[in-house]
């Protein structure tokens, strides 16, 4: 596990992921007066998931504010604030509602440093809850990270634990370039852990080895980490050693850690909940196929959502989202190859 970057304070507090995110936002707003937080319902109400609970009361309506309902302009306005030297943190209420902002993202967010030859740069963070597993309405469970990762000039971070969420979010906010920060809705309150108090960062671009093992490497991130770890535990019961790698950062990707593990295990399974065709799992897979072909003793399997919209039908949505059984089967398949 990567060391935390500033020495965390001696104390720590048990926190859910959403509480850890709230803490990170408060620390950022406290430390840097150029930090601004905005989006739909983030102010008075503190966000639909309460990620910004209490922050408007604490930092005032100038620093933490509600915007009109228009995602393109939430991102676009943030870009303008970033140009003018502020550090905007925008919330998009659900990742599936980032689509109206994709024009701003593709046309501008990643291009400003390039098109102004570094005269301007955008120290902006865009947070959004993503992913399924909690019976949300239509389009509230989308996982569009592959699209964002294909945009040159932006970073993409997806944490899987409260401690990581806090440290990575602070690192994202302090990064000089635009960062997407996707938060698995399923993880917001499902687990708690002891999270260091005060300021610390976890560097972007460094993966985390969650479980060690010699037989199979499972590469994943966000909401699929706990699913993969459960599958790894099940495999261990059958004597299979699974190394689960939590990428944490999709862009830049920590290919070194991935290749190091695959060199050891010779088998790779990639797990995401996005639709199969064109998902980020394919990018991981393609990198392994390009850089580690000699180590491979089995096909690189992908355990993913399917090539259909995430189903708005509660009774069957769990069929769509990868679960430990599916991951375990893939692990068995590559072992038996």
């Amino acid at each position, binding site marked *: 596990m990567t060391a935390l970057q500033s020495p965390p304070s001696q104390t720590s507090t048990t926190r859910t992921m959403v509480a850890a995110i709230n803490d990170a936002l408060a620390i950022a707003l406290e430390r840097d007066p150029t930090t601004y937080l905005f989006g*739909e*319902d983030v102010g*008075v*109400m*503190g966000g*639909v998931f309460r990620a910004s609970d209490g922050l408007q009361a604490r930092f005032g309506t100038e620093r933490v504010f*509600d915007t*009109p*309902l*228009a995602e*393109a*302009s939430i991102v676009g306005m943030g870009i303008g604030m970033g140009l003018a030297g502020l550090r905007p943190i925008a919330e998009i209420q659900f990742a*599936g*509602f980032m*689509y*109206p902002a994709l024009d701003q993202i593709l046309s501008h967010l990643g291009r400003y440093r390039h098109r102004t030859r570094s005269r301007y740069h955008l120290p902006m963070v865009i947070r959004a809850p993503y992913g399924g597993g909690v*019976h949300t*309405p*239509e*389009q*509230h469970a989308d996982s569009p990270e592959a699209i964002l990762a294909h945009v040159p000039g932006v970073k993409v971070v997806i944490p899987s634990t409260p401690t990581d969420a806090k440290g990575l979010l602070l690192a994202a906010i302090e990064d000089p370039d635009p960062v997407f920060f996707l938060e698995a809705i399923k993880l917001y309150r499902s687990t708690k852990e002891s999270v260091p108090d005060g300021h610390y960062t976890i560097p972007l671009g460094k993966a985390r080895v969650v479980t060690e093992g010699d037989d199979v490497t499972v590469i994943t991130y966000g909401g699929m980490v706990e699913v993969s770890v459960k599958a790894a535990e099940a495999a261990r019961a059958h004597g299979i050693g699974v190394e689960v790698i939590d990428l944490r950062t999709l862009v830049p990707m920590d290919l070194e850690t991935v290749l190091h593990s695959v060199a050891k295990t010779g088998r790779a399974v990639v797990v995401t909940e996005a639709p*199969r*065709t064109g998902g980020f799992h394919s990018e991981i897979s393609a990198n392994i196929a390009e850089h580690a072909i000699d180590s491979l003793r089995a096909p690189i399997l992908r355990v993913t959502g*399917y*090539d*259909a919209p995430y*189903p*708005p*039908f*509660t*009774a*069957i*949505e769990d*069929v*769509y989202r990868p679960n430990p*059984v*599916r991951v375990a*089967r893939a692990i068995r398949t590559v072992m038996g190859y």
Partner: protein
Amino acid sequence: MTDLASAPTNSAPTTSAPQTALPTADSSADFPRHAPATDIPFQLLAPDGNAHDPAALPDPQTRLSLYRHMRRIRHFDERGWVLYRTGRLGVFPPFKGMEASQVGTAAALTSDDWLFPTYRDTGAALTLGLPIARTLAYWRTSPHGWHMPEHLKVLPFYIPIATQYPHAVGAALAEQRKGTNNVAMAYIGDGGSSEGDFHEALNFAGALNAPCIFILQNNGWAISVPTRTQTRAVNLARRADGYGIPGVRVDGNDVLATYQVTAEAVARARAGEGPTLIETVTYRIAAHTVADDPTRYRTDADTAGWAEKDPITRLRLHLLAEGILTEESDAALLKEIAEEFEAALNEADTYPEPEPAEILDHVFAEPTPQLVAQRAEILREVGE
């Protein structure tokens, strides 16, 4: 709703009779100009049920029918809460207090017209004839709720805000190009009207003269955000003026008024005169959805005044005073409505649960090789 669609409409003074052409630098304008919407919403009935001009009201049968629809959807709304609390509904966005806004507008259509409702507009869809059982199925997140009946052109409630606005323009344009006189109606909220799609759709509809009616239900809130934070404008119907189309501001708690201005807009659209924007000024008395806690962002004082403006009470007082309704006939109506609902609920309960592989149905007419393989994966998994 053919009974209502053909009801006579009186000209509402606030609306959009073309003015004498305004002086303009651009004499190429092909279309008549309209006066911008007034700030005071058009009203036929005062909150106490008194008509400003009794001669201007629709016939008694129409008034009673509108009342019946409001009662019927209010009942759905009330039962919705209960069903949610007892786990028999997945989620539900209530529309209490907005019945006049939804009934008066949808009632001006026929089943040949298109309806593009948001999640808030269960009442509008029911008014146009969406069966209650299927509507319940939708809010139960059953696939049965998403397959709309063939005899209607009602689309499943839209969740991504404002996105269906351009679709309505396209459907309306298609009707025009096909030479029918059908129209399309699309709903949106005060919050939704901040999205770019709203602007683009109104402009497209104006430029292409599409027979499209845009209903902007200004209910004061977009989840926790009040309209005054949403926009600096106090008159959202004025936006129509920026697209050269008529805009009308109407009392959204007066169903006779909403019905009349909508019927006029529909008549204009059918006559080839193009689109209209109608702002219904109303209020979201209840929570954003059954899962929302409005005390986090507003106080009772915010809602207080609006309870008195209840659209059902208003019309009820009027109908009783006019003798169009009696306490007895009202009670009978409520009983009938409740029975209809329970029968529909029973029907909805009979809908079978979906099969796992249904998540891959209806992606393409012919499943791709990839989908065929993925279906096999699913069947293998659920077989385990």
